[in-house]
């Protein structure tokens, strides 16, 4: 491959890129602006308190259990609890202002305690939900289950109404179909609970037992002595790769535009190999993408203290990601016809790749089969590799697999581009 023409072609592309200074500024600034915004959203687990999920608790029961349940949910840092009327709660869900309203119907407390001690059916708890907020509903359902178990246990064993219900339970034991040996054991349990309840009432000392038996302690696991997860590092990785692929579309459109303008006739008339022409484009595209990624991460490092755990590994993954984007651009140019049509189709493909790569929506929300599919998408390898070398703080060795996959993808794209490129210039 002739190096002097190759260098001249690369220099030409870089000259053209830097000629339009406004475009250069935008090329660098837009990924930074969008990544900063996403970083701000994902950074909620840091010093700033995460946004609470709004929940309406409609208490039509007024029992000790319903009050315990509302108190427990109100003390949950993940929830913002209000107590509107049923009509207001329904209207708020309908309007999308809240995702879930919990309706505690009249008689809920008694029914739930009876069910807890094996007397009667389970109590009904109604959730009014916004169908567009499935994640919030799932989260509230999980938290509510935990709070409910705690509240029912405490109310059944220590609540004022429980003695009456236990009396009922004791009376009905004799006529129940519980086996005789179990019946006697249950009688002792109920009587002990009644005794405990009376003891609390006379001494005024709440029972030390019968509380939630564990506390959750979170430790963020990274390879660095980080105080906390840095959401900016991840968002700059995701958005950086997204804009690298957008740059690849520009590269492809540029090649097709050059063909429309007859420039490829002049280039092809020179004694140059086909690979020289495409490799030059790949090199210049890689340089421009690399510059964009490095400037973005430098900004994230300085402004948001986004960590770079392993500089060598980071550079390796960044270079491989840039090569991947550039060769993808070559393939798009090889398969495309007109710049406008190619840009639209390629934009669709890139957006799908970015979405599957987990840059927008966490991939755990995808169906299982789709989650498997994401491992075929180079965006995921690039983002995972950058995550590993930045906030995860993993070592250089952990950069090798994503780098290898990205370079293999690049080789396939490059080979297909050379094969499928429309070389004939009639």
């Amino acid at each position: 491959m002739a190096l002097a023409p190759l260098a001249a072609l690369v220099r030409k592309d870089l000259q053209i890129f830097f000629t339009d200074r406004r475009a250069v500024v935008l090329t660098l600034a837009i990924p930074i602006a969008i990544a900063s915004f996403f970083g701000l959203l994902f950074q909620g687990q840091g010093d700033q308190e995460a946004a609470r999920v709004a929940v309406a608790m409609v208490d039509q029961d007024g029992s000790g259990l319903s009050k315990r349940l509302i108190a427990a949910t109100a003390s949950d840092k993940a929830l913002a609890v209000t107590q509107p009327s049923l009509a207001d709660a329904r209207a708020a869900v309908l309007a999308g202002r809240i995702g879930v309203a919990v309706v505690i119907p009249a008689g809920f407390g008694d029914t739930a305690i009876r069910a807890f001690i094996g007397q009667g059916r389970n109590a009904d708890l109604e959730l009014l939900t916004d169908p567009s907020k499935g994640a919030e509903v799932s989260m509230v359902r999980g938290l509510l289950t935990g709070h409910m178990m705690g509240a029912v246990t405490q109310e059944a064993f220590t609540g004022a109404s429980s003695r009456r219900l236990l009396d009922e339970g004791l009376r009905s034991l004799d006529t129940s179909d519980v086996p005789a040996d179990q019946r006697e054991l249950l009688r002792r349990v109920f009587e002990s609970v009644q005794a405990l309840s009376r003891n609390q009432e006379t001494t005024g000392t709440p029972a030390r037992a019968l509380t939630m038996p564990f506390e959750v302690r979170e430790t963020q696991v990274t390879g660095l002595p980080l105080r906390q997860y840095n959401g900016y590092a991840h968002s700059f990785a995701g958005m950086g790769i997204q804009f690298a692929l957008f740059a690849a579309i520009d590269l492809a459109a540029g090649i097709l535009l050059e063909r429309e303008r007859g420039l490829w006739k002049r280039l092809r008339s020179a004694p140059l190999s086909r690979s020289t022409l495409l490799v030059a484009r790949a090199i210049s595209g890689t340089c421009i993408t690399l510059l964009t990624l490095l400037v973005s991460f430098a900004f994230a490092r300085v402004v948001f203290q986004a960590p770079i755990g392993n500089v060598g590994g980071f550079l390796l993954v960044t270079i491989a990601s840039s090569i991947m984007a550039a060769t993808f651009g070559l393939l798009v140019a090889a398969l495309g016809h007109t710049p406008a049509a190619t840009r639209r189709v390629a934009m669709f493909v890139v957006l799908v790749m970015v979405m599957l790569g987990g840059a927008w929506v966490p991939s755990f929300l995808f169906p299982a089969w789709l989650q498997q599919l994401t491992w075929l998408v180079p965006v995921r390898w690039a983002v995972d590799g950058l995550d590993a070398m930045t906030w995860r703080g993993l070592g250089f060795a952990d950069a090798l697999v994503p780098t290898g996959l990205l370079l293999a993808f690049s080789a396939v794209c490059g080979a297909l581009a050379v094969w499928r490129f429309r070389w004939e210039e009639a």
Partner: protein
Amino acid sequence: MLAVRDLRKSYGRVVAVDGASFSVESGQLIGLLGPNGAGKSTTVAMIAGLVTPDAGTVTIAGNPLRGDTDPHKRLIGLVPQDLALYEELTAAANLRLFGSLYDLRGRPLEDAIGSALLLVGLAERAGDRVKTFSGGMKRRLNLAAGMLHDPQILLLDEPTVGVDPQSRNAIFDNLEYLKGRGKALLYTTHYMEEAERLADRIVVMDHGRVLADDTLAGLRERAGRDAGPGASLESLFLAMTGRTLRD
């Protein structure tokens, strides 16, 4: 210097060039005439190595042209019909790039750029971006880019399309100068008067075939025979290619 023998190229069922043969000697300008779709541009593209012929040969100074990197391609300069220039770059930067593709570098490259710009009257605009140029200036720069590496053969595909008479005349002067320096020029055009002014021999093509290959005098004589005394080259052209409108 340039010989084309039995060139053939088809696109599916459409035969673009069908057994074309002609030659161009040093110091000679051949006018390649034909209506739209006659096969002129495809023929030029095959000579320049842009399109691979289905059959036939292109020989440069006696050497058959083989492949993209054939060193004999250095002997060819192409001036495409399109304004094949990077508008964002200056005139000098364009020529610097195109010269580098032929391994020109350093002082020889800068000298070649200076000479080419001087020849086409753009020396004072060397540092200006091409997008600020008029159509005529771009055409002249297009010519300069094709001859920058001092090729022995210059392929000119309708190089005067859309230019004002001044620029057109300047291009003609440039071509006559190049012919005088012993270059072999192949010039495709629709304009009879351009061929009459510049060409030593005229090749008329239609439907991919060479219909005539003769000197201007020979063609005039033939026109007189076929179309009557005093008949113009254009009337002969129309007699050979017909009056049916072409796409």
